[in-house]
């Protein structure tokens, strides 16, 4: 087979060029630490790296969001704890006031202290967070939620809360509305409320009552009318008599339709008591009702005792409601912590995956570099020796 002189030359040069190019690429991979300089180096790997980087960026953002939510929720928790303490103090004051031996002016003093507790509670409800947003106004974050108009405290905030995204498919409420914390508290025992008419003249004091048989209870407004200190009838809102008792005495419970209501003292003829379906009562209106009662010198001890008894149940309801909301806030804080922990683990995995796809494998690259160096040297040396061979040399 015939070989042209030029073939030998061009082949040797182009082989050395190719080897040098390979060497340069390997050296570049080693110097930069990455083997993915552009998508053409490995399109599938580059696509995966892009997707993983996006996941990593989103995960970092979720951690940031979680930190923000944590600080807001912790402020809310603190506020509810302070509110619970205020309600507890108010409860103690109410118990103190439920003493027939107190004079009207002593009761008025206690009313003044309770007024202070009420104002404290309102200002806790109107607290702001670190960015100046209202904690308890829901999405109306620039609206002061609680406003007192005379003796009524109204809720002016929103009915919905904002959400914060703490994980890829996880959004949690970043707060609770003032309505759910302070306003929508079940009145009475949660099922019904009891009250005595203001015109009652006897010493009968109606208690809060319990539901002894849920199946038998028919939600309605009932009137307990005493025709004498020992006789009373219970009628419902349509006038139907549901119970008649003729041997009532002090300490007996009034029972009808699955409920049991204790009654202390001796009612007079003509006294009436109402059993109504429980609605909602706000913590503020509960405190206000005690203040109003204690400030009214015309009420009898029995009426005062009855009202305060009911209010104490309401305060307990409020405290229990607040503790429920607190528990839900605690649960949310826990889920932020656990999703941040998961994010940490995810980010570690993603970093490893990206590194495996795009980083240079140093061991393999250095081996490749050595092999290519040896090949290039061999090409250069062999060219040097073979290019010396020529017949002309021997024809001198």
């Amino acid at each position, binding site marked *: 087979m015939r070989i042209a002189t030029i073939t030998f030359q061009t082949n040797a040069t182009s082989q050395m060029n190719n080897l040098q190019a390979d060497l340069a690429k390997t050296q570049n991979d080693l110097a930069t630490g990455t083997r993915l300089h*552009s998508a053409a180096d490995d399109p599938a790997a580059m696509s995966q790296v892009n997707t993983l*980087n*996006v996941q990593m960026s989103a995960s970092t953002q979720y951690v940031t969001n979680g930190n923000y939510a944590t600080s807001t929720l912790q402020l809310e928790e603190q506020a509810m704890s302070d509110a619970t303490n205020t309600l507890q103090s108010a409860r103690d004051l109410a118990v103190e006031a439920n003493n027939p031996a107190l004079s009207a002016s002593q009761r008025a003093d206690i009313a003044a202290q309770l007024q202070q507790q009420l104002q404290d509670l309102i200002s806790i409800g109107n607290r702001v967070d670190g960015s*100046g947003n209202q904690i308890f106004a829901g*999405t109306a*974050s*620039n609206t002061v939620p609680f406003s007192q108009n005379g003796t009524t405290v109204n809720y002016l905030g929103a009915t919905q809360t904002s959400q914060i995204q703490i994980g890829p498919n996880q959004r949690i409420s970043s707060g609770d509305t003032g309505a759910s914390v302070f306003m929508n508290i079940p009145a009475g025992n949660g099922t019904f409320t009891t009250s005595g008419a203001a015109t009652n003249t006897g010493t009968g004091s109606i208690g809060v009552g319990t539901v002894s048989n849920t199946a038998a209870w028919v939600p309605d407004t009932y009137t307990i009318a005493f025709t004498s200190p020992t006789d009373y009838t219970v009628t419902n809102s349509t006038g139907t008599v549901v119970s008649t008792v003729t041997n009532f005495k002090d300490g007996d419970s009034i029972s009808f339709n699955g409920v049991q209501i204790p009654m202390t003292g001796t009612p007079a003829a003509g006294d009436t008591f109402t059993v109504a379906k429980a609605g909602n009562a706000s913590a503020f209106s509960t405190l206000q009702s005690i203040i109003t009662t204690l400030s009214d010198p015309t009420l009898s001890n029995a009426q005062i005792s009855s009202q305060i008894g009911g209010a104490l149940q309401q305060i307990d309801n409020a405290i229990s409601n607040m503790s429920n909301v607190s528990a839900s806030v605690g649960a949310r804080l826990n889920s932020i912590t656990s999703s941040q922990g998961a994010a940490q683990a995810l980010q570690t995995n993603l970093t490893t995956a990206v590194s495996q796809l795009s980083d240079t494998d140093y061991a393999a690259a250095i081996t490749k570099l050595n092999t290519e160096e040896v090949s290039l040297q061999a090409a250069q040396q062999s060219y040097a020796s073979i290019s010396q061979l020529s017949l002309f040399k021997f024809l001198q």
Partner: protein
Amino acid sequence: MSDLFSSSVSGLLAFQRALDVTSNNISNVATPGYTKENANFTERPGQAYSSGYIGSGTDIQSVTRSYDELLAGQVRSSQSSFSNFDTYATQAANIDNMLSDPKTGLTVSLQNFINAYQTVANSPSTTAQRQALLSQATAISQQMQNYNTQLQTYAGGIEQGISSAITQINTLTDGIAKLNQQIASGLASTGQTPNQLMDQRDQMLDQLSQYVSVSTATQADGSMNVYVGTGQPLVIGATSQQLQATPNQYDASENQVSIVGGGGLTTDITSTITGGQLGGLLSVRSQVLRPAENTLGQFSVGLATLVNQAQGAGLDLTGTAGKPMFSVGGVLSSSSRSNTGTASVATTRTNLGSLTSDDYILRQTSAGTWTLTDEMTNQPVTMTGTGTAADPFMAAGLSMVVSGTASVGDSYEIRPTAGASAGMNVLLTSPAQIAVASSIQTTGVGANTGTGVVKSSVVSDPSVWVPGVYTISFTSANAYQVKDASNNVVGTGNYTSGTPITFNGASVTLTGSPATGDTFTVGAAGASNTGDNSNAFALIDSLNAAKMNGGTTSLSSVANNLVSQIGVQTQQAQSNASAQKAVNASATDSRNNLSGVNLDEEAAKMVQYQQAYSACAQLIQASNTMFNTLISAIKG
């Protein structure tokens, strides 16, 4: 004696010629394209003597090249293939590098934009975070503008390459035509092959192959005809036809390749050009550059549309409906320069999910009949409508209105997304204008007896949202019905606490247990909800959802798929180029092994001819001696 003398002289002359040929070969050992020449000895005719026929020496009959047309053709075709892929790979690599950075690529920018929305959602009334979001919006729109500028630069470079390749081709075909004439006349007048001219012509053909794929046909008179494409002649004998860069009928900045025939008539042969730099540039323009422009435009349109729709479905910090955040360039509708009618086509985008990354041709094929063709696949696309403003043509997410009078055969090129990135700008000027709050709110009617509570209400799909007042009523504790203001039922379903109730693009989530007869009113939100961030989440969800390409691809995937597609095209072109380089090297070796000079071979021949020359000279000396002997013998 005279025979001895004349035959030795003939040998002397012959070997002298042969040595000339050898020295020429040796001098040209490194000349590219040189074909080894051989001196062909022939025996002179013998003369009849009584003692037999005696030959009368030798002549160099001809000097011919060691040349094989097949091997030369293989070198040229592999050269064309290599140049084709090499040019394609270089241009594609430009675009690949532009898009590929994993730290600053489009997918990262989009995620940064989404992250900025998340940060605003954390505290919607904080100005600093809204400002940061506006900055991200500006950054991403500037990035799209930059990509567009870069692509236009590459496009300009490609057009430049096309016209300079055409210029080079014309220079070479002119040269080949001239050589054809010289070779033909040389062959005709002397009967010998003009080897040097033929080497020159082969060189020119090799160079021509770098620019475009050609086929050749040798003629009887020694000239070589050259054809391009599917048989268009570039050189016939001594005449050459010029190629010309003609402007594309729809876009004057784009070059088409035409051949100039008799009378200056140009014929567009762009679709038949393959191989060489020219073929590579034309392919990369249609397969890589234009699809990249279109897909980047599709991304811009997608981002702008989704964000602007969400703005319109939300309230900003002042409690007013959000205004569009982004502007993008419109649809490019161009009339063909060969249109004879007066019509123009105005096109708008109507449906994001139906937009594609293809270009279209709208043509009036016969009076009153219009067809829409996909420019890349040449497949027809179904269109509805009649093209008037009241009933536009609808297809591929576009609405096209023809105004004026079009003649039969008039055509228009429609590029739905290519112009979008250049015009991507942020329109909002103040951070308060970002509409993060929902524009709808749901409230329970006071008479409700159940425990149903509204958790959120937001416009989740602005593209189908019908603004108005709606009523959700519970027909039982587990079933609801949604009616609009005219009492039409727009949605029904079974109720599960916490599962969204969707209708007409709105999404309302209730928790708790509504009672039979409970109703909830969905109406416009009040301005007081500055802390509401549900519209931001609705936008984040739609940016992450598959809203593109018929509901199959998310925005991020559009960007990511573009990067890997360009990567694959570049990688394939690069590996094809190196494969063809090897093929070309092997073909060149085969040709050189036949046609190249081997110094050792020439050295050996040189020795052979030298010795023969000396021997002939000796013979002349001997003949001279014999003659002198004869003369002195006669003289006495």
